[in-house]
Each structure stands twice: as structure tokens, then as C-alpha cells.
């Protein structure tokens, strides 16, 4: 089982973001970075498939800045065997440009599976996985929360709004992994030490001209403070009125 996992370096979300003066991007000072949560589950899925098969390899690919080597090393510490950084300093919101670079990298790799996280928690486009599948001419199954690979075919359950769907697909295939498939492992120190010796290839990536550019960015409006309408049954009519007219939830 030869598996590739595409990961993204994203800012840790438990910080207060600030927007630059020209409103084109968020401030990067003081940010910390980690592997995108959904990609962690994709890595975990790949590792479990490899462990179950007892043979195979997990290769991690990342399009990002030089510092993203840190995230690739972390994936290796979790157990991935090798990695490649397609280096670019462009902060690109154009999923297709990223997908083209990835597809070119993966094309001749002979992978049985290419895994993505369902969505990147920073840009939230959820398009790169399906685009890579299209470029590689492979079937794609998105939002996978249950997975079973049997020889040359796979069976997955997909998350739908309030329901789920079971699909079958032939290998090779592209899957995007959703929350709930697994809980990612934390790297052990043994894994961290071993990761330092695993092969990591760094090569420049040319994203070309972006078809999509960000014109402006804004923080969400501050939530207004709660209001106490009154106390007891007397307050109910006013509360209902406000819920209808102001909050518009009734």
C-alpha cells in the first residue's frame, strides 16, 4: 500500500488574529503553526492503513514556505516514511494553482491512495483534493468518516447533512478525510528522533499567476453583550418580541 498525504501548514487558531493595514492579509507576527487538523486525521488514516496492511509507505507532500519542513517532520514523527516540500512563499488562495503543483508531483508516484484533509481550517476552500483527483484522473471520495480498503477496492462512508452515504471505489483514488474517522496520535520522542533521519526533499514550486486574489479581509464583528430583558413570566412577551424582530430567530 503506497499512500501519499497532502498536508497544509496553518496558523494555530487559539490566538487573536489581526488584519494588516492594507486589509489584504492577517498579521503573521506572534502566530504559531501546526498541521491542519483535518490533515492530521488524513495522516493518521494513512498510518493505520499501512499498519493494517503490514507493508507499504506513507509519503507526505506539502506546498508551503520553507518553515513548513517543521510540519513535515512532525508527520514523520507520527510515522510517515518520507516527505517533500514544494517550496513557495506565495500565500495562495487559488486552489487550482496548488492542485496543479501537487498533481505534477504525485503523477508518477504510483500511489494507491492520495489522502487530503477535507478542508484547510485557514482558507476553508475544500477544493484542492477534488481538483488533484481530476488532474490525476482518479476517482475522488470526499468527507470520509469511515474507511475500509480491501485489495483493489475501497469502501467509505461519507458525511452528508444529517445523514451518511456508503460508496465504493476502485484504487488508486483520492480521498478527503473528515472529522470522526480517527484521533491522531501524538508523536513519541522515539518518533521525533527517528523523524530527523527520514528523507525530506525540498524543491521550489511555481504556483504561477493566481486566478483568484484576496481584495480585502475583515475580522468578524464583535459580539454584542447579552441583555437581560426582565425577570419572571412578565418578561416573556418582550423576550418573544425581541427574538422575532431583533434576533429574527423565531
Amino acid at each position, binding site marked *: 500500500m503506497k499512500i501519499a498525504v497532502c498536508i497544509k501548514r496553518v496558523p494555530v487558531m*487559539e490566538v487573536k488574529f489581526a488584519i494588516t493595514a492594507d486589509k489584504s492579509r492577517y498579521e503573521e507576527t506572534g502566530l*504559531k503553526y501546526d498541521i491542519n487538523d483535518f490533515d492530521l486525521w488524513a495522516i493518521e488514516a494513512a498510518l493505520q492503513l499501512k499498519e493494517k496492511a503490514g507493508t507499504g509507505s506513507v509519503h507526505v507532500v506539502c506546498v508551503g514556505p520553507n518553515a513548513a519542513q517543521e510540519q513535515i517532520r512532525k508527520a514523520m514523527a507520527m510515522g510517515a516514511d518520507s516527505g517533500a516540500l514544494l517550496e513557495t512563499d506565495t500565500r495562495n488562495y487559488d486552489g487550482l494553482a496548488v492542485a496543479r503543483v501537487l498533481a505534477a508531483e504525485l503523477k508518477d508516484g504510483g500511489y494507491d491512495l492520495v489522502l487530503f484533509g477535507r478542508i484547510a481550517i485557514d482558507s476553508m476552500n475544500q477544493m484542492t483534493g477534488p481538483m488533484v483527483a481530476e488532474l490525476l484522473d482518479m476517482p475522488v471520495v470526499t468527507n470520509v468518516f469511515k474507511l475500509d480498503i480491501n485489495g483493489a477496492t475501497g469502501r467509505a462512508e461519507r458525511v452528508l447533512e444529517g445523514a451518511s452515504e456508503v460508496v465504493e471505489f476502485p484504487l488508486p483514488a483520492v480521498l478527503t478525510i473528515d472529522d470522526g474517522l480517527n*484521533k491522531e496520535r*501524538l508523536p*513519541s*520522542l*522515539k518518533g521525533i528522533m527517528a523523524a530527523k533521519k527520514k528523507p525530506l526533499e525540498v524543491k521550489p514550486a511555481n504556483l504561477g499567476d493566481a486566478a483568484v486574489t484576496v481584495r480585502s479581509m475583515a475580522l468578524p464583528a464583535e459580539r454584542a453583550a447579552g441583555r437581560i430583558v426582565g425577570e419572571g413570566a412578565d418578561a416573556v412577551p418582550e423576550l418573544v418580541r425581541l427574538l422575532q424582530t431583533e434576533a429574527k430567530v423565531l
Partner: protein
Amino acid sequence: MVFAVVLLGAGAFFTVSALRLRRWALIGHAEDRTNDPATRTKNLLLIGIAQTKIMRDGFGGLMHALVFWGFCVLALGALEILIQGLVDGFSYAWLLPRPLFVVYVLSQEIFCGLVLLAVGWLFYRRLVIKPARFAGDPVHGGDALFILSMITVLMVTLLLTFAMEIHAGASAAGHILSAPIAMLLGGLSSDAAHVLGRTSWWIHALGLLAFANYLPFSKHLHVLTSLINTWYSNTSGPGRIGAMRPMDLEAEDAEQFGAADVEHLSWKNLMDGYSCTECGRCTAACPANITGKKLSPRMIVVKTRARLTEKATVLDAVGGGTATMEQQAVLDKNLLDDWITEEELWACTSCRACVEECPVSIDQLDIINELRRDLVLMESRFPEEAQGALTSLERNGSPWAYSAADREAWTEGLDIPTMADMVAREERPDILFWVGCMGSFDDRAKKITVAFARILQAANVKFAILGQEETCHGDPARRMGNEYLYQMLAKGVIETLDGYQVKTVVTFCPHCFHQMGNEFPDLGGHYEVIHHTDYIERLLNEGRVPLNTEHGQRLKVAYHDSCYLGRYNDIYDSPRNSIRKALPVVTLVEPPRTKSRGLCCGAGGGRMWMEETEGKRVNVERTEELLATGADTIAVACPFCMTMMTDGLTASGSEVPVLDVSEVVAGQLRV
């Protein structure tokens, strides 16, 4: 002549056993335990000879101490008996002036009697009273009865030997017990008396040799090792004594982190196994065990010795050859999992109650910590709930997923300068107030933060906080076995503190206090770290806190000791003194388990971030004890204890408030 052969044989057999035990202990890794001979001598004299720790158990402790002292005194007599076997009729009377000899005889008689009385009571305790701590674990209770019987036989035969010598006309001077026995048996013919005397002598002499040779194979090996174990115990003093073993993560050739099997432990951990007599004092004090968890610190030590015996026996049998399938199966086992389960290890709150109680200075916690390190560092195995805390520590520098930007939210309207502010004004604070993650983010703990800040302001202390530059020092990760994450975080904090040339740190979190004061030095961070209860007491003593002394409430306060303040750092008085000084009319009440015997709140050792589903909740047990004192206020000096006690009180449906010592004092501020 016959005796000489027996003695030689017994001596040889004993030597072989002793050397084997030594060789086995050295399967453990090296560790220097030779520093500080003064403290070692003090420990030996107090804990060893004066039996201070065994006396913590009241009357039973005294009885055991009598047996120990009797053993020491009667060892002289044993030597005399053994020499008699080689030199017919030998007596110390040949060597000693007459009065001194009589004193010697008297000492033998007195201790013979005392030991018999003590053994009688110990029999009574084992067979009739049956204290709970003797049961519970699968230990060798029968062994104890056997050894008590053996001591009885030795004492009785010694007295009979003496008595028959008197019967044959020897001097009765000093023989306060055997002389009356001789009189009682006065009717015996001289032949019968001779036979009885010689038989007693032989039983006694052979009994001594059998006893010595039995010890290495029984739990009573402690007779031989406890003093040595006490000598080699940790001498690093208050605070440092609870510091976890330093670990070199950068060592190039290191392949094992923590301990999965006996060879990963130190020789001292293994000798602890030899010294354990399964008395159960540790387990009886263990908060996890008391509340029905699987952990028993006694069994951690018993299992360590059992695994060592199992593995070393096979290693000896294999020698330089190839192991058979069965032998290999034994060698492939581990102390971890095959003997000690993950579940036992994660139940530990690292409260040190077990270490505190052990009369022979065993360190159960050290073994637990080393096994936890293997679980996390080698295998990444830990309770699922803990992952959130570890991930957050790595991502956010706090075990809770809060934004660093919120760290100083509590300062709003209080005019609290940060170190950066001070530096910008070219000023230097006298102290750095280390707020800690709970103090920064937890809504209840933030009130403690404000209370302490108000005291500092009222006392005109020039202080600053780090604000957003503060991050966790990694102690929770370290306690959970994640040394890697710990060192990363701790080194970051040390860099920040050194950047501001911080000299003195004051904090109200005992975990921060312990970590920064006692464990940072191993990573090169040297600061004077003071717990706020010590600092408040100092301010009160200097009269620097303007207190409203007239309107003191009449309170009945039960102070709950924090483990990391008390047992780890020997701070028991300053929280109590601070309360007394701040409240003119206060009654301090103490639950039965208090001070060095205080029961943990249940949050230590990373338990704060794990579920507690097995047995009773530790905090509920502790809260009930505190409520039973009739206190109308519970005082704590730790934000973790605060959370646990508050939850415990809610569970008990009680409305007794929990206050931090600083809140008690701040409540009396004249502002």
C-alpha cells in the same frame, strides 16, 4: 567441629545469596548516591536507628521499633553464641570487666523480654486486629507469621540457654528473666537440665543461621537492606527531593527514554524492591488506592522486585548461552504491561504520600514517573483525555486552549505593569508575579490573582507580570511523562526570565512554585522562587499589609494542604500563620489527615486533565473529611486544590465557601 562446618556452610550460602542480590540490583543503571554524607548520616540515625518514620504508625510502630532495637542489641549476643560454637564455653566475661559484663547480660535479658512482648502484640495485631493495610494486595501475609514465630523461638531458646547455665551453677547476675526461669525449672535433674540447655543452644544457634539464610528469599530481606536503603535514599532536601530525575534528551546514543523494564530503572529503584516488607503504609496513604483505584504503591515496589527476580533468574540460567523458548518468553516480558498496568500508572496523583510514609525510604513515585515516561516518550500511550492538554501546551503554551492575548484580561482596571512596561520606563520590579495558566484563564482562579495583586499593591510592593509573554513551564507535561514537551516549554520560559534578568519570582500556584524553584535549576534556570503564602506571611510580619483588624469575621477554617507545597516543599506553617494573622478571631481546625499526611485533592500528576471514572472521586473523599471538621470555611493555597475542593463541595451539596489564603487576607485589607 560439627558447628564449625555448619557455620562455614551457612556463611558460604549466605554470601552467595547476598552477592547474587547485589549482582541483580546492578542490572539497573548507574546512579550516584554518595553525595552529602552528612544528610545520609542524619537519615540513617533518625529514620534508621531512631525509627522516626515507623513511629508514625503509633503503637504498632513502637512495637516494631522495639523489635528493631532488640535485634541490634541481641546481635551482640548472637555473636557470642556463634563464637561459643567454635570456642567451647566462650563468654564475653573473658573480655569484659565484670560490671560491664553484667550490664551486657542485663541488656540481653531486657531486650529479650521486650521483643517477646512486642512479638506477642504483633501476633495479636495480625491475627485479631487485622488492620486493613495488611490485606488488599496479594502479598505474603503468611511470611510475617512465620518470621514472628521464628523470632519467638530464638528468644525462648536464648532464655532457656541462659537459665540452664544458671541451673548448672553459673552466676545469675543481670539475668532478670532467665534466673526466675531457672528457679521455676529448679526441679530438673542436672542431666535433664544439661540436655535442655544444649538443645536450646543448638536450636538457637542453628535458628540464627537459618534466619539469616532465609531472609534473602523473603520479604524480610528488609532486615538486611533497610539501613543501607535509608543511607542511599534521596538526600536533596525540601523541594529538590521531589524534583523529577533529569533527563538528557540530546544524548546521541540514547535509545530508551524512561523505563519499560527493570534494566531501565536505577540500581536504587531495584534495591527499593529488596527493602520493601509489604507493610502497606504507602498504600494506606495513597489517595488513588483509598478511593478504589487499581494503583497500590506497595504493589509497584513488590512487582518491581518480582520482575527483577523473574528476569535475573533466567539471565543467570542462560548465562552466555542461548535461551530456550520458555526462557526467551520470560526475557521478552516487561515490567510495564506484563506486571504493572497503564491504568495503575495513570491513577497516580504524584502526591508523594507513599514516599513520605515509607519507613525504609523507598521512592515508589520515582518508579511510576519512569514508567510513565516510557509510555509517553517511547510509545505515545496516555489517556485520550490528556491529549487535549498536551496538544494545547504545544500549540498555545497552556494546557487549556486559550489565546495568549487573554492572559492579562484580569488586569483590566487594576493598573498592573508588565515587565515590558517596566523595561520601557527603565525601571526594575522587586519581584515578578508569576500568574500561571490557571491564574490567567480560570474564572475562579482569576479572583485569587486579583486578591494577591491587591495585597501586593496595598503593601507597596514593586512588582510586574509577564502578561502575554508568560507561557506554561511545562510541568503538567513533565508529570504526565512528556519530558520532551516539558523541556521545550521550560527552556522557553527560562529564556524569557533571563531576558528580563529576573531574580525573584512569586507565584500562588504550588506547581509553578515547585517547578520553577526546584526543577528549573537542572535546565540552567536559577531564580529565587517564593510561594505567595510565604511571601504574604513575610509582608504581614513586616507589618506592611494594612489590615482592618476590628471587623474580623469569626471563622472556623479548615486549611487543606497542597501536596506540592507541603510534602514537596515542607511549607505547612505559612498558610496557617497568614490566616491567623489576618483574622484576629479564627479557629483553625485540622482534619485527621493533615500536613505531611494531608490527602491530595486529586489533581496532581496530570490528573487535572484526565477523567476519574473508577471508584470514588478523590476530591469528594477529601471534601468530606474537611467538612467533618465542622469548618465554615475551607482554605486552600493552590488553584488546582481550589477547583477540586469547589467541585467536591458542589458534589456534597455543601455551601461552605473555599477561599485561597490570599483571598482570606485580601478580605481584611483596609483600603
